């Protein structure tokens, strides 16, 4: 950057910025908001991964390797074999299971069962010296299973030393007794606020019917070759469990939210794009206003190259200053978004304490670079255009913002080409392009960026008489100006399009997924009542277990046709986490149907016989396991192959579901627990009467909640809507940026039309007509942006539902736009334009004929 440009910057540029503070502030705000949104998303994404990695490391308890066997588990004796492997310092069997206390307090907690004697000197889920205090033997003689609670609960009466807690377990109601306190530290971070400890045998008594552990932590000796140890352990395990390191665990957590995080990244890029459009519009119009000044400088001897350098330097200053504001705002936004995420999406899957951290230095530099890049990309085209003009052009031409119109047919052709390319990608399932959904969406952005100008011209053409009839002279004048200045205003329309397109596409996404879930519920869920633990749904289908044999007792209740004892096990599978669902494959159709994607009716009977498994559509597509193939799972006897009998629709777990008959499951894994009972009635008794009997049955053995299908559906939908809450925050940001941009465009437009407005006043136009003219312009910009936004929103939603969903989750979703919401979106955009036009309208109405007509200054 030349020294001359730096020397001229304070005189020719900064002076102008200082003089027009509001406009400068608006331009800086556009950059700041875009950078803040970008930075917040980058920090949030990193924070999510950091949280997962931290949780994974802590859950591994310092172990270098972890053996996992799902809820079916492994026998603890396997650890005795593993500790003999060369390089293994310790092999510690452990359980981490959800429990539900009933008295004196009702809460859901995690119980960690491990034998400290097996722990190495350092590390471990429960270290040898972690117990801060023990109860007296006398207290323990009162009976109950001894447990250890976090030290910070010491002051609560329910957790006093020796206090008794009633617990619902698969073996019925049991008493736990507080035997001591665990030092606070990392435990809450890994396992949530309520994490209790117990000896392994005690924990197994409270949480398991068959004495299986769900993990064995393997600690390596110093200097041991991890790869060799791993190979030896896998040879011994022989497919009975999955061996992972903590990072692999973290990646599994991450995979669960992979598509969501990709979506966040896309949204942050979109926010930056919206900012770039607005900065471009702002700078273009500011340059139009300064054309005389810049022409004077050219006449006085500033060469074209020098002017270009100066304008690019201006853009860089705006970019850096805006980015500076964005960094500060981004830190705040990162914290808010993180909190929102963990309160909504994050709580759905696992108990993970969030890492809520501010953006790092590297991320901040990235954000600043993004803001600078956005401003430079925005400033270069107008800078080149201005510098290309002859020195006299700015002095000679009238001071309006009209520019030479680019060839409209070419733009329209380009826009249609990009839109067609996007449509082709969407309709053809992505053509094998990775992340094709994002490309399709970006092509749509390009299409609207190019097409806004000609489309706006087309929309405005021939609407003069209509607007004159509907809105009077103000409407006609507003429309005429929009048509004359269609170049610069189309950029603002693009920004409004992207912002409201985001709003509408989110609605289409939500409604489409909702409808899919609704249809799936209607088609497949036949049960009338459900029994589950309190946090079963909100914990992502985990929660405390029951004895599956309780289903036989429920079956005996009058009015009950059938009872499913459902077992949900999250299992590692090819670097991901899938759900293994054990259910009664031979259940009558009324108790639930399978929506077959691939398969025939006879396959249900084969499932019931235990001939194989069903897989969800998502699982089949993501892992290439369609009907007729086979999949392998780790079992206590080693890896076992299961034929895939059919592919079904099942959206209960985003990474894929495997259905297995419960008899086969219990025979293979020896796991006789269930997390949910699905009860189908025969219609001979009212639902509420049966509900009372069921509740009475469970109250004495294992209190759970008994709810009907409608309530389950409502709860599932509530969780689903929480999942999308984060996107609403992003929408709000985008709409704010669009509002600021519209406000700025109208302000600049009023300034550039001082003489024209003064002439209208001189000819007798009242102030209110001038004000109405400007407000109508805002409404017209909003209406155009809203209408284009609906189209953009449908296209983007289609890209997500048909491509991204297919790629990430293995199934595509039917696009279901709501036309009522489309109308509301357009109305919302028009309202935004109206509100943005209020201040400029007041400014325009203040103009006096004399002041503006004279306007002989420089």
């Amino acid at each position, binding site marked *: 950057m030349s020294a001359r440009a730096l020397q001229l910057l304070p005189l020719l540029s900064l002076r102008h910025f200082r003089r027009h503070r509001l406009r400068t502030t608006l331009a800086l705000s556009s950059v700041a908001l875009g950078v803040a949104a970008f930075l917040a998303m980058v920090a949030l994404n990193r924070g999510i991964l950091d949280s997962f990695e931290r949780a994974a490391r802590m859950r591994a308890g310092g172990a270098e390797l972890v053996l996992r066997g799902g809820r079916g588990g492994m026998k603890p004796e396997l650890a005795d074999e593993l500790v003999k492997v060369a390089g293994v310092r310790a092999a510690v069997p452990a359980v981490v299971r959800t429990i539900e206390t009933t008295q004196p307090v009702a809460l859901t907690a995690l119980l960690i069962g491990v034998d400290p004697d097996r722990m190495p000197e350092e590390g471990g889920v429960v270290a040898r010296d972690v117990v801060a205090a023990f109860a007296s033997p006398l207290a323990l003689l009162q009976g109950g299973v001894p447990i250890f609670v976090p030290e910070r609960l010491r002051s609560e009466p329910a957790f006093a030393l020796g206090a008794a807690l009633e617990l619902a377990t698969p073996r019925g109601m049991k008493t736990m007794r507080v035997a001591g306190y665990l030092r606070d530290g990392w435990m809450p971070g890994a396992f949530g606020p309520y994490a209790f400890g117990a000896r392994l045998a005690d924990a197994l008594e409270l949480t398991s019917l068959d004495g299986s552990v769900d993990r064995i932590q393997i600690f390596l000796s110093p200097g041991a070759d991890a790869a060799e140890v791993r190979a030896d352990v896998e040879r011994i395990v022989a497919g009975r469990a999955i061996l992972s390191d903590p990072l692999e665990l973290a990646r599994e957590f991450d995979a669960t939210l992979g598509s969501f995080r990709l979506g966040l990244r896309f949204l942050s890029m979109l926010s930056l794009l919206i900012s770039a459009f607005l900065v471009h519009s702002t700078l273009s119009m500011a340059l139009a206003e300064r054309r005389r000044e810049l022409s004077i400088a050219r006449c*006085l001897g500033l060469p074209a190259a020098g002017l270009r350098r100066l304008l690019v330097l201006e853009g860089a200053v705006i970019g850096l200053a805006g980015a500076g504001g964005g960094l500060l705002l981004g830190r705040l936004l990162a914290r808010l978004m993180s909190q929102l995420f963990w309160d909504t999406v994050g709580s759905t899957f696992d108990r993970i304490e969030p890492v809520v951290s501010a953006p790092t230095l590297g991320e901040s530099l990235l954000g600043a670079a993004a803001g600078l890049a956005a401003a430079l990309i925005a400033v270069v085209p107008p800078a080149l255009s201005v510098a290309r003009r002859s020195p006299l052009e700015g002095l000679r031409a009238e001071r309006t913002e009209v520019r030479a119109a680019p060839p409209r047919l070419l733009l329209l052709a380009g826009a249609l080409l990009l839109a067609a390319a996007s449509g082709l990608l969407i309709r053809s399932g992505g053509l094998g392009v990775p992340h094709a959904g994002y490309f399709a969406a970006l092509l749509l952005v390009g299409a609207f960026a190019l097409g806004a100008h000609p489309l706006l011209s087309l929309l405005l053409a021939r609407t003069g008489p209509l607007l004159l009839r509907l809105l009077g002279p103000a409407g006609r004048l507003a429309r005429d100006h929009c048509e004359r200045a269609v170049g610069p205003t189309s950029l603002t329309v693009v920004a409004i399009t992207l912002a409201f397109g985001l709003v509408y596409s989110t609605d289409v996404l939500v409604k489409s997924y909702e409808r899919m879930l609704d249809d799936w519920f209607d088609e497949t869920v036949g049960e009338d009542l459900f029994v589950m633990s309190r946090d079963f749904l909100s914990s992502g289908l985990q929660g405390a277990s029951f004895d599956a044999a309780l289903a036989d007792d429920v079956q005996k209740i009058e009015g009950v046709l059938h009872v499913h004892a459902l077992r949900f096990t999250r299992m590692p599978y090819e670097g991901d986490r899938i759900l293994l669902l054990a259910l009664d494959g031979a259940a009558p159709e009324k108790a639930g149907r399978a929506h077959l994607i691939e398969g025939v009716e006879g396959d249900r009977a084969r499932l019931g016989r235990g001939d194989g498994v069903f897989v969800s559509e998502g699982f089949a597509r993501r892992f290439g396991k369609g009907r007729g193939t086979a999949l392998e799972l780790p079992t206590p006897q080693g890896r076992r192959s299961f034929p895939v009998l059919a592919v079904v629709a099942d959206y209960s777990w985003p990474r894929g579901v495997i259905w297995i008959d419960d008899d086969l499951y219990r025979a293979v894994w020896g796991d006789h627990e269930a997390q949910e009972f699905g009860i189908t009635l025969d219609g001979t008794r009212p639902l509420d009467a049966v509900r009372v009997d069921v509740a009475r049955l469970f109250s004495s053995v294992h209190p759970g909640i008994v709810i009907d299908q409608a309530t389950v559906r409502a709860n599932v939908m509530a969780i689903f809507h929480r999942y999308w809450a984060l996107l609403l925050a992003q929408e709000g940001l985008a709409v704010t940026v669009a509002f600021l941009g519209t406000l700025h465009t109208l302000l600049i437009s009023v300034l550039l039309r001082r003489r024209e407005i003064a002439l209208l006043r001189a000819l007798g136009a009242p102030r209110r007509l001038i004000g109405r003219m400007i407000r109508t312009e805002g409404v017209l910009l909003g209406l155009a942006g809203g209408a284009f936004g609906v189209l953009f929103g449908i296209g983007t939603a289609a890209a997500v539902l048909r491509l991204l969903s297919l790629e990430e989750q293995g199934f595509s979703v039917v696009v279901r736009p709501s036309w009522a919401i489309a109308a509301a979106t357009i109305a919302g955009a028009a309202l935004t334009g109206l509100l943005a036009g209020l201040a400029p309208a007041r400014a325009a109405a203040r103009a006096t004929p004399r002041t503006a007509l004279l306007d002989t200054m420089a």
Partner: protein
Amino acid sequence: MNGGAAPLLALEGVTKSFRRGDEEVVALAGVDLAVARGELLLIMGPSGSGKSTLLHLLGGLERPTRGRVVFRAKADGAAASSDGDDLARLDDEALARLRRTAIGFVFQEFHLLPTLSAEENAMLPLLLDGGATAAARGRARAMLERVGLAARRDHLPDQLSGGERQRVAIARALVADPPLLLCDEPTGSLDSARGREIFALLRELADREGRAVVVVTHDPAALPFATRVVNLRDGRLEQEPARP
């Protein structure tokens, strides 16, 4: 004209036409004109005769459609070779350099930058040339004093009268000590008394400082101050003999 010495600036067979829609408009047709140092040349003519176009060609702000515009001074004001430079062939960078160092422009509407003070407006050409700010400021102050505005140097243009703004514009035009001064209707926005003052100043610049001053005007009050007058009508030049 200086007897025998090559003129500082010469138009040779210059034609300038513009495209307006489908129509080609000829603003100047085959104009030959020479401007010497030390003279105040008046170019007069009715509206639309091409006066401003002629001035812009002289200053390198426009390129001729045909012909040559020969300037016999270097960018630093030193004399060029006898052949001079054809402005039509110079690139944008070279023309810009000439404009900020060898040619001073005074516009009808002053064209001062509204956010800069009188002093800052006056020193702008030197800053555009990459000069040190302190030196530029000193030179600007000297020029403002030269035109009688030293006391108003910190005022913004909207705080100055029309005549004062025009003087600032003249100071700006002189700050780089150019051999050529081009003035487009310099008194168009002034009353007759201020107008005469401006013309007197311009004549002084030509007589005492040996600059070539070209003034485009339709103000008859300029006639007594002119060394030579040419009339432009429909893009063609009609020359009148020099006035004493």
